[in-house]
């Protein structure tokens, strides 16, 4: 009996660094006490940037490590960079808010680092076990984040609600995993892929896939498992909401793609209809339910539900260009969302945060630059060219038509017109209505920087779209070997 060789750790280098960094920062925070929040936050951002560097060092080549539990490939490379960018921007945006609201604790950036670590694990999962471990690490950190503002009833409620529903969904996911294991005898994605390459599977496997899909749909807040989203988004502290709407969403979509395409690519005919239904339901609900929202965080919750629906169109196509479309969608989505939340974070009047959409009235007069940026994000989310949001929709619709899913594409574009209504309403408030008051200034240098970066990317993406598109294409190709 030969000894099991020590597993190669090189593919997991970014994750190993990140966990060490999180521990170290916890120490820094614990020893330096309460005043260290800003320092720890910046160090956390630094750690995330270094992690991006390490992801680049590991590279986009396909490597399986940790005895087959862990994989890095072009897809993981792309998604990890997205998640890390999203997390870093979230921490940058959170600092000013946390200080003003009196919740500037060093645990916050550490929690985000841990959640990010979970996301990286999810993206690199190559086995049902590592899938679940990554997902839980992420979720537990996020539950705490949602309830981070302990004195606020809404925040506590949001955390509790997220925890209870999240635990339920994790249970379903785990049950699905056990079914898959029970009916196939393995948890390894490679072996599952070999077993089902022919496209034949027993009912037990299908039921297992459905249960896991339910759990994943919950994590990326797709209809009909979206119910937690508006409440949690509204109740959680705004930087947490911003974080929720960016990094975990990307990670969950990435896991969704990896889970369906890699081990069960052969069964695409079986799961495609589930994804189609989820995509249609999410797009329609995201479009119609948002119309009557008066709270901007709630509105963004529905908006994010809709965007997940559009992204899932690409997964429903199940083809290489479909996945390319999803990747492009998520990349652009990050920038639109980060920018929008940067504006929401600066909606402060007389020292208090305001969240009503009507508070934006007349922003075009009182703060023209911010209004211009938010206007760009809104038109972009509505998918109007030449802004970036148009390209994200373009590719998923292209993939859908290429895969013959014309009805899905038609429902998609029609719901995008409905969705355009509420995005336009924000533009209307800012530019057509008279101001009711002004927001506090200054808005903070970090927020300003994030806003400028995001607006520039969204506005000028059309000039050089090729790098992102070819990068996403290469990432998607790694999921479809041969």
């Amino acid at each position, binding site marked *: 009996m030969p000894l099991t060789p020590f597993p190669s750790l090189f593919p997991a280098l970014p994750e190993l660094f990140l966990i060490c960094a999180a521990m170290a920062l916890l120490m820094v925070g614990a020893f330096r006490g309460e005043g260290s929040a800003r320092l720890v936050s910046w160090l956390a951002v630094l750690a995330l940037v270094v992690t991006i560097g390490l992801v680049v060092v590991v590279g986009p080549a396909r490597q399986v490590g940790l005895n087959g539990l862990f994989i890095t490939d072009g897809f993981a490379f792309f998604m990890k960079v997205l998640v890390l960018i999203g997390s870093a921007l979230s921490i940058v945006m959170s600092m000013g808010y946390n200080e003003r609201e009196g919740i500037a604790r060093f645990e916050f950036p550490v929690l985000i680092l841990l959640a990010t670590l979970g996301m990286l694990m999810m993206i690199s999962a190559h086995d049902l076990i590592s899938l679940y471990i990554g997902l839980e690490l992420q979720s537990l950190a996020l539950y705490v984040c949602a309830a981070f503002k302990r004195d606020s009833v809404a925040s506590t409620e949001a955390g509790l609600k997220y925890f209870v529903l999240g635990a339920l969904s994790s249970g379903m996911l785990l049950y699905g995993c056990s079914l898959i294991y029970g009916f196939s005898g393995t948890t390894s994605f490679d072996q599952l892929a070999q077993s089902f390459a022919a496209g034949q599977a027993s009912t037990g496997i299908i039921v297992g896939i459905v249960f896991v899909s339910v759990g994943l749909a919950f994590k990326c807040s797709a209809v009909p498992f979206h119910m937690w989203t508006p409440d949690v988004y509204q109740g959680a502290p705004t930087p947490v909401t911003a974080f929720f709407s960016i990094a975990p969403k990307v990670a969950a979509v990435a896991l969704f793609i990896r889970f369906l395409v890699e081990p069960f690519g052969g069964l695409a005919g079986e799961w495609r209809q589930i994804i189609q239904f989820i995509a249609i339901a999410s797009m329609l609900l995201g479009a119609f339910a948002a119309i009557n929202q008066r709270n901007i965080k709630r509105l963004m919750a529905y908006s994010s539900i809709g965007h997940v629906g559009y992204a899932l169109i690409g997964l429903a196509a199940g083809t290489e260009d479909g996945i390319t479309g999803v990747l492009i969608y998520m990349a652009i989505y990050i920038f639109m969302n980060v920018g929008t939340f940067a504006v929401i974070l600066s909606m402060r009047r007389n020292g208090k945060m305001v969240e009503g959409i009507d508070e934006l009235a007349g922003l075009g007069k009182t703060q023209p630059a911010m209004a211009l940026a938010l206007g760009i994000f809104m038109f972009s989310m509505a998918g109007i*060219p030449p802004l970036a949001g148009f390209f994200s929709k373009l590719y998923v619709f292209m993939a859908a038509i290429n895969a013959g899913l*014309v009805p899905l594409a038609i429902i998609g*574009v029609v719901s995008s017109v409905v969705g355009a209504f509420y995005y336009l309403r924000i*533009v209307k408030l800012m530019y057509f209505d008279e101001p009711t008051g002004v927001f506090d200034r200054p808005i903070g240098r970090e927020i300003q920087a994030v806003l400028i970066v995001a607006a520039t990317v969204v506005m000028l993406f059309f000039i050089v779209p090729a790098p992102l598109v070819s990068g996403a294409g290469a990432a998607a190709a790694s999921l479809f070997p041969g």
Partner: protein
Amino acid sequence: MSSFPILSLATFLPLIGAAFILILRGAPDIVARNARWIALWTSLITCVLSLFLWAGFDPATPEFQFVEHADWLPAFSIAYHMGIDGISLFFVLLSTFLTVLCVGASWVSITVRVKEYMVAFLVLETLMVGMFCALDLILFYMFFEGVLIPMFLIIGIWGGPRRVYASFKFFLYTLLGSVLMLLAILAIYVQTGTTDLPTAMAYDFPVGLQKWLFLAFFASFAVKVPMWPVHTWLPDAHVEAPTAGSVILAGVLLKMGGYGFVRFSLPMFPVATEYFTPLIFTLSIVAIIYTSLVALAQEDMKKLIAYSSVAHMGIVTLGIFTVTEEGLQGAVLQMLSHGIVSSALFLVVGVVYDRLHTRDIARYGGLADNMPKYAFVFMAFMLASVGLPGTSGFVGEFLVLLGTFQVNTWAAFLATTGTILSAAYMLYLYRRVVFGKITREDVRRMLDLSPREIAIFAPLIVLVLWMGIYPASFLKPMQASVANLIERVESAQKAAHLETVPRVAVR
């Protein structure tokens, strides 16, 4: 063919002007003044630049000229491909020309947020010119749809009391039409592997697919034209938009639909064109007669002209779908003529609106007494709109009716009644506003045209007469392109007929 990227320059020059305006800082009135001047100069230079296009244009060839080609999204073989032929040439000129007038017409009537206003118009100019030059479907779509953003803001920020309703209606209506076209473009991409327009124009799509694609493009262009019954956004948008906004709407944005039919629907879907011609004829005839009758009953000057636009554009769609040389040339000329005449009429309304701040026809009357120059200008454009021989309106309508007569006598007959109705409502409008006795003191106190206003109207009158008296300078450059287009459509239709069982011509 020069290697100098004159089309790109003409397209993106306004953006440079807009950027300059954006960085203006200082006291509000100085910023406003500088913004006006920068906008005027930028649009003037662009206009002159586009005249070089006309001068350098070779009318002998139907090929695209001044072509520019650059990789943009090589992974999807989507390219930055620009070029113009005899059909698009004049639309480019129309766009650049009208933008100058719009800046001039907004000189004193726009007093709030002048900076943003001028930026919006310059961005709009870029998008319009780019749209008429684009030779790639995705590129075209970007310009086509991008127009919505500045127009939405122009109507919504500087518009009248019901501006919010009008701007939303305009935006969502046209967006719904265009997204279907986007799907059709993607379907074309999937079918042909490219979005390059010249390639797609020569590609023979399967007949079944052609019909669906045609309908998707039709959804977009019919809203833009607008054809009856999807025209209802237009009166609202026109009435609420500021004067210059109405001018651009009537002058250029409506032409995007007609241009789309000529550029895309006809050459790409010739068989479907034939199949749907009866439908389009019917809709056009209904538009001509019905909206003319509606125009007769209007109390609001802008609304009346808006409805007359729908009727005139009905003549355009009729002409396009005759697919005869006369019909197509007439349709394009009618679009140009309408672009100038209806823009001029909106400016005419704007003149009195600036003074009295009402568009209610009943509030005026007897303007011939105290505003003789105004009465003359109004008359010139009113007669051009009616289609009096010697004006631009006549040539276009006549050619279209000539073409229609060859294809369908009844359609020609009914369309002709429309021109009679148009004389009725325009003359009625003119009588109520200009003739009669002045009964109100504020009307009596109105001043006649200022030199600035005369400077705006003079080139328009010259153009109207030029197109009416010597249309050859406009028809000649488009002849080769139109003939080429007709040949493409007819040969494709013939090929399709040979494939299937020969049908009895229903016409």
